[in-house]
């Protein structure tokens, strides 16, 4: 048996998906024009699947900060912070993140994926338990594998199920609970205040919240879902990424625990990788400044999110959750989802195709991420494209009304 034979099933399914049109997992962006537009297949396409929630990738201050950093500090650090040194920009960013999230200290990682890997694998060991929400991101699952702890999965967004499972464990054992703020597939948010209560009711339990999709988006000052729920201080570790609302790349973890900085010498994903490029760190610093200085970015984002959510719902399509900057449109099967995804791109709108096993409850989804940079006209264009999809699927209310009239005749 060859080394690739085990992928035969997956290879077949991937081939079937490609038969329905384009390759949804290899879309080539020939030229990026702005935070919301690109050239794909030789024509202008509206981007509605970027995670660029605040639309900062072309923000003047962020571009200037990145350019200046390249000119002043070079293109890369060429080594890890432990072996090759910490740049002043890394320290500035860590200090700024700690201030922004009102925490004692912050550690920066080279990607958001590594932030979860480095934090969870750094914190938990073979004698500990990690309890993860069933819908957690792959980086949290991978972190669990790396740390060697006993991994227990609890029902998505269920503090009751978490409580039950915690009660079965040895009170003396360390228990790390991992959840996300905003879930990236369905766009639903975690009941963080209830999770904090459950955590507080058990000895030696710690809560880690991944705010990858919610930083800069939720909360009065953009700190995330924990701020929005009023439990920022009830969370032990907040993880986040620079590659979404901050328009850069990299990740971080902040904490009030005084021993937290020891992670720098025992978290392997922190130690054994090259540190963040100065331009990426400088971009993140500038983006944090923009979040502070321009709260209207969040106002616009949420207005766009509501308009898009309401427009798609009015077209008769079924949505994954209440309005949020992630709008998930449920499709009846993988095949229909792939067909609809192609139809959206035919109309010049790029969204994400999300299919099992990458989705919760084996759902097939067209996933849209809203941006503060989307204009009202662009939101309308996305809604109109979904109306065409709804008509094709025969679920548009106009068609339903027509059917009722016919049935009545």
């Amino acid at each position, binding site marked *: 048996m060859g080394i690739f034979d085990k992928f035969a099933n997956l290879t077949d399914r991937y081939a079937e998906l490609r038969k329905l049109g384009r390759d949804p997992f290899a879309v080539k962006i020939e030229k990026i024009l702005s935070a919301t537009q690109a050239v794909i297949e030789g024509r202008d396409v509206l981007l509605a699947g970027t995670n660029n929630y605040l639309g900062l990738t072309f923000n003047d201050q962020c571009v200037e900060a990145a350019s200046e950093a390249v000119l002043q500090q070079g293109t890369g650090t060429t080594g890890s912070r432990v072996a090759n040194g910490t740049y002043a920009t890394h320290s500035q960013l860590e200090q700024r993140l700690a201030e922004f999230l009102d925490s004692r200290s912050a550690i920066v990682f080279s990607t958001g994926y590594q932030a979860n890997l480095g934090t969870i694998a750094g914190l938990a060991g073979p004698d500990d338990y990690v309890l993860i929400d069933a819908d957690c991101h792959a980086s949290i699952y991978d972190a669990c594998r790396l740390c060697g702890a006993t991994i227990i999965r609890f029902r998505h967004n269920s503090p009751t199920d978490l409580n039950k499972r915690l009660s079965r464990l040895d009170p003396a054992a360390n228990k790390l609970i991992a959840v996300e703020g905003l879930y990236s597939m369905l766009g639903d948010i975690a009941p963080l205040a209830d999770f904090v209560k459950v955590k507080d009711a058990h000895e030696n339990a710690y809560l880690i919240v991944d705010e990858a999709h919610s930083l800069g988006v939720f909360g009065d000052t953009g700190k995330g879902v924990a701020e929005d729920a009023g439990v920022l201080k009830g969370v032990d570790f907040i993880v986040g990424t620079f590659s979404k609302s901050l328009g850069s790349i990299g990740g971080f973890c902040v904490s009030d625990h005084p021993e937290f900085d020891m992670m720098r010498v025992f978290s392997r994903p922190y130690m054994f990788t090259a540190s963040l490029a100065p331009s990426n760190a400088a971009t993140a610093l500038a983006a944090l400044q923009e979040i502070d200085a321009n709260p209207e970015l969040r106002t616009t984002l949420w207005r766009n999110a509501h308009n898009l959510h309401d427009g798609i719902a009015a077209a008769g399509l079924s949505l994954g959750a209440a309005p949020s900057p992630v709008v998930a449109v449920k499709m009846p099967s993988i095949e229909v989802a792939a067909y609809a995804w192609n139809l959206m791109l035919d109309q010049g709108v790029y969204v994400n195709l999300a299919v*099992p*096993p990458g989705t*919760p409850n084996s759902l097939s989804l067209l996933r849209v991420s809203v941006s503060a940079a989307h204009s009202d006209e662009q939101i309308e264009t996305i809604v109109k494209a979904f109306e065409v999809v709804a008509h094709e699927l025969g679920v548009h209310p106009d068609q339903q009304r027509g059917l009722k009239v016919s049935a009545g005749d």
Partner: protein
Amino acid sequence: MNTVDELALHKITALLQPFNTRNIKISPETNITADLDIDSVAVMDMIMEVEEDYEISFPVNNLLEIKKVGDLLDAIGALRQSDALLQANAG
């Protein structure tokens, strides 16, 4: 097979039925991922239902060892036994 195993087999068979697209007879010898049309996440979701019934938590770490329905039955039995021991010791 004792009564508990039979009940568990019955429960697992019902949970796996939606994925039994080739309509095979599900037995302890059934290979969960090879014989059924089920992905890794759906397997974990199915196990969550079993956990609820038996009030156990099945470590995700051990999932790789579960190939056949019989492996799952054995794991449920072992977990129930260790939980009972833990409770007896605590009492």
